[in-house]
């Protein structure tokens, strides 16, 4: 197995040692190890320094971490000053975090989940769930491969490579798709649950829905929807207990 493939596989566990001090740092160091192996024979001192730098503080979206990993590994082989590599790593944290979060957590995941929910309700069952998993993981695998390759090919010019890539355009497109899919899923799922109960039960659930939206907005951030749900259930049980 090549060093690059091992690094790619290790990137799937890049958040394994997540903590509030170094965040993804140690996970990045773990993924960097196979990439830096050849440096050990060429320049052992530089290799030791590179390993230290690879495990320092770092944070970004895990699916785009390969861009930073590849770029910094290449910079180590080009023997660029350590301070410059640290600056590159630091500079990549925010954009890779923001772009990856927009693309995956606020885009791709809700878009595919919304579509899967509609599929499940319309009777696709397992197919909808399998489709979600296959599509998401296919895109994610390809993105991981592309990230590492692009990072290793562009080195210190990784910022320009990201700017001219498919990434910004994909982020623009996936957001509306996510909004549409979730927008479609909510009424479909509502009908799926509420139809068997009849009209009056539907009105009751709608009342809980409206109260939930209003109260969690007024008392945010203390009152989350989970807390609201648990409080409403306890309230209901108390009411039933006293005979209301």
């Amino acid at each position, binding site marked *: 197995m090549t060093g690059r493939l091992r690094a790619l596989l290790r990137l799937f566990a890049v958040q394994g*040692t997540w903590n509030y001090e170094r965040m993804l740092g140690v996970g990045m160091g773990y993924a960097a190890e196979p990439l830096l192996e050849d440096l050990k024979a060429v320049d052992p001192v530089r290799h030791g320094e590179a390993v230290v730098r690879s495990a320092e503080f770092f944070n970004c979206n895990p699916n785009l971490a390969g861009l930073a990993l590849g770029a910094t590994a290449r910079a180590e082989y080009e023997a660029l000053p350590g301070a410059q590599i640290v600056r590159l790593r630091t500079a990549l944290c925010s954009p890779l975090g923001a772009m990856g*979060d927009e693309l995956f957590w606020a885009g791709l995941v809700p878009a595919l989940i919304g579509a899967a929910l509609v599929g499940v309700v319309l009777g696709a069952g397992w197919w909808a769930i399998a489709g979600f998993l296959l599509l998401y993981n296919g895109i994610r695998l390809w993105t991981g491969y592309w990230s590492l390759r692009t990072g290793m090919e562009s080195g210190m010019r990784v910022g320009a490579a990201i700017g001219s890539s498919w990434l910004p355009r994909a982020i623009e497109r996936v957001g509306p798709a996510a909004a*549409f899919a979730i927008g*479609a899923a909510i009424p479909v799922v*509502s009908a799926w649950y509420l139809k068997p*109960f009849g009209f009056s039960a539907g009105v009751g659930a709608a009342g809980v829905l*409206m109260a939930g939206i209003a109260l969690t907005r007024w008392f945010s951030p203390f009152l989350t929807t989970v807390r609201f*749900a648990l409080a409403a259930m306890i309230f209901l049980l108390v009411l039933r207990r006293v005979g209301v």
Partner: protein
Amino acid sequence: MSELSSQVVLSLLVWGTLVGLDLVSVPQAMISRPLVAGTVAGWLVGDVEAGLRIGVVVELFALDVLPVGAVRYPDYGPATVAAVALGAGSPWELSLGLSTALGLVLAVLGGWSLQTVRRWNARAIQRRAAALAAGESSAIRRLQYGALLRDAARGMILTLLGLVLASGIKERVLLDRQTAVALTLVAIGSALAAAVNGAVRSSGRKARLKWLLAGAGAGVLLAVLA
């Protein structure tokens, strides 16, 4: 739950552990999404319908979470597995409310346990600070494997706790039909509130909001036709 065989309980425990690991540590393949975790758990206990119904309702709560940066969030995966174990074998109209309540409590506990594991990871790193400063790759590997083990243990304990609670609730808590249905309706209404909150917050006030409204229109049409 009480009538589940030890083989099924073991498979739920393994599934809950994998799902717990998937949330953050490895491989983030989205098997921890309640929709997936719940449906597979339903299949394991022989009641896919319960898995789907509970998975979808917890998924609506999960849509209110945007796991960006260092944000703290509930762990819905193992929680959904335990919720399905509780709801399996009963009509979903009667069991969904209680199952969702158990799932939400466990999800909150799961979020708290995630913070604990993260603090333990930080302590482990501090203990190996000298080795890290010396550039020892073996120290990085040990930290990584140790952290993965801690998270796997977290997922397993959370699932086990959920299964024990599910068993206790199934044996001891008896709700009359009206209360059980009302609890289910409260769970559905709250879950929909969570999904709407998440969708509106993500959409903001720009073009994305128009797409959300267009999607809602299409969804209403589908719901009427379906």
